[in-house]
């Protein structure tokens, strides 16, 4: 009996592909948050808090200042995002961060998960 040569063998899967197929813990949590609608609720909560704390007005002022400096016609949304994002991240009030973290923790241990 001769051994049959396999011609139509599928290509060996890439090791990189395998890595991609297995989502990281962070990604799993992200998916769960989206599926349950919790992410939407968290986003809305965050928006509310940032407005309340004056963070949004602060950012608005920074943007206006930057646009004035560069000139109204010489600026793109990408420039603005790139410049403002680090400042924005740095100036989020700690209590808001803590509240959101607490909310995510509660979500992760909730029985509905």
């Amino acid at each position, binding site marked *: 009996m001769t051994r049959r040569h396999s011609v139509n063998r599928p290509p060996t899967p890439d090791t990189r592909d395998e890595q*991609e197929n297995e989502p990281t813990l962070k990604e799993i949590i992200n998916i769960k948050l989206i599926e349950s609608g919790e992410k939407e609720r968290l986003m809305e909560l965050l928006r509310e808090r940032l407005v309340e704390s004056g963070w949004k007005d602060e950012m608005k002022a920074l943007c206006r200042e930057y646009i004035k400096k560069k000139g109204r016609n010489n600026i793109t949304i990408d420039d603005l995002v790139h410049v403002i994002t680090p400042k924005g991240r740095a100036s989020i009030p700690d209590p808001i961060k803590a509240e959101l973290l607490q909310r995510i923790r509660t979500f992760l241990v909730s029985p509905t998960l």
Partner: protein
Amino acid sequence: MYSSNDLYTNPKPCKHLAEYKVKNGMCGYNLIQDCFRTTPYGRTTLEMSKLEIPRCSVCSGCQGRLYMCLICSSVFCCLSPESNHALLHSQSQDGHEILVNMERAELYCSVCCDQVYDPDFDKAVMCKLIKGFSRSENGVEESEMRLSKRRRLSFGMDLDSKNMKRLFIRKSKSCFPLGLRGLNNLGNTCFMNSVLQVLLHAPPLRNYFLSDRHNREICRKMSTDRLCLPCDIDLIFSAVFSGDRTPYSPTQFLYSWWQHSENHATYEQQDAHEFFISMLDKIHDKEGKASLAIKDNRDCQCIAHRAFYGLLRSDVTCASCGFTSTTHDPCMDVSLDLSACNSSRKDFASKSSKPNESLVGCLDLFTRPEKLGSDQKLYCENCHEKQDALKQMSIKKLPLVLCFHIKRFEHSPTRKMSRKIDCHMQFPLSLDMKPYLSSSIVRKRYGNRIFSFDSDESDVSTEFEIFAVVTHSGMLESGHYVTYLHLRNQWYKCDDAWITEVDEEAVRASQCYLIYYVQKMLYHKSCEDFSCQPMSLRADTFVPITGCC
């Protein structure tokens, strides 16, 4: 919504957007419309699938701003000017410059690295939004609730858009077909209301009364008899098809009904089937006597008989010599046994264990040869002796409106008690009665032969469409009747004064007691001409439809 923008002129589109518009027009905007979704907080986002979160097709990351290409629907991220995958995409694919921000549903040009504006795109978004809100009767809150409900169901996108479309087609109450009006319960009269709803929407009866074939004025002048049931039915027809949607109280009819049958003149619960039969009899009494048909020995031409009159054929065959005697019985409905739940029944085919919860199954059982018991021996004209016999039922003449009565109330003589059979029954929306016609049954008896047994039946239409189901919930002694009407491919639940749209599942989940089919050609006709029913005939009694609630 644009009034506050008077100070601003529309920003000039960048050359990439202008090129895109010249090449593709509104095509991309229209296609992407199905992906717009409103979050419970009223924001519009872009969603491709419920199951997957969007990922950049270059780095498969899901961080940062995500954009969807309007040409190829691929998703790209833009984390920083150094790793702008959207820009990378437009550099490798010519003409793929315009993308949509997935989180905000806003236009973006990847070459200019900037937000771009197009009134047509915004119109597409707003169009979708407005349509989305108008789906619900109570405005924004309910639509948001529905959306969040849909979200939990985690459908795929295609399924989801189908669901959306279905919700779209749903109209507000004022768009219910004409003639849907609740009937107030006048004290345990749900048996009456449920049957009245059926009769009001039975196409032959509706056409008869709405075309003024029974005129109250003329009837009053013609007859000295003050009581006239068809007159009262005509009154209900006028009230129900007036366009007024507030529940109607058929008091006049009930009073008249009590006068006609004194044994029913109570506030007690009654059997809907009994009421249906006696009501047809009462209509026949009044209308049939007026016509000359009975004298000519023809079929009665009264409206009750023209709509519901059928003929059953029963063949009793002598078991010893094979002689068959045939009798024909008039019928207004076909009563069917629910045998699956009734193990005591002795079937000729001895397949009593076979489940029989479908209408087709019941009809098979109905037309199956049945061995008559020893107490019902047939006097055979051929043997001149009492012999065991086989009895087989079939339908000789199909009526225009076919009513099936499901025998849910079983009386057991041995236990001397009655009970209700609570099982569900499946029924088809379209039914072909051909296998149950006498010609088919007799043909089957003689085997597979090409021979016309009953030529006069061949031209009869045997295709039926369902239009009403009367269901019973509760116990034998007390319960509640609800009618489901199938009009224009939508089910409506008529629960006394309340009329609501329901899904087919709701109808299937209830216990049907009376099932009404109408000949297919009449059903389709009724679908088409319903909305343009000529109003001029009864212009005096109709009020304009625009004034409905």
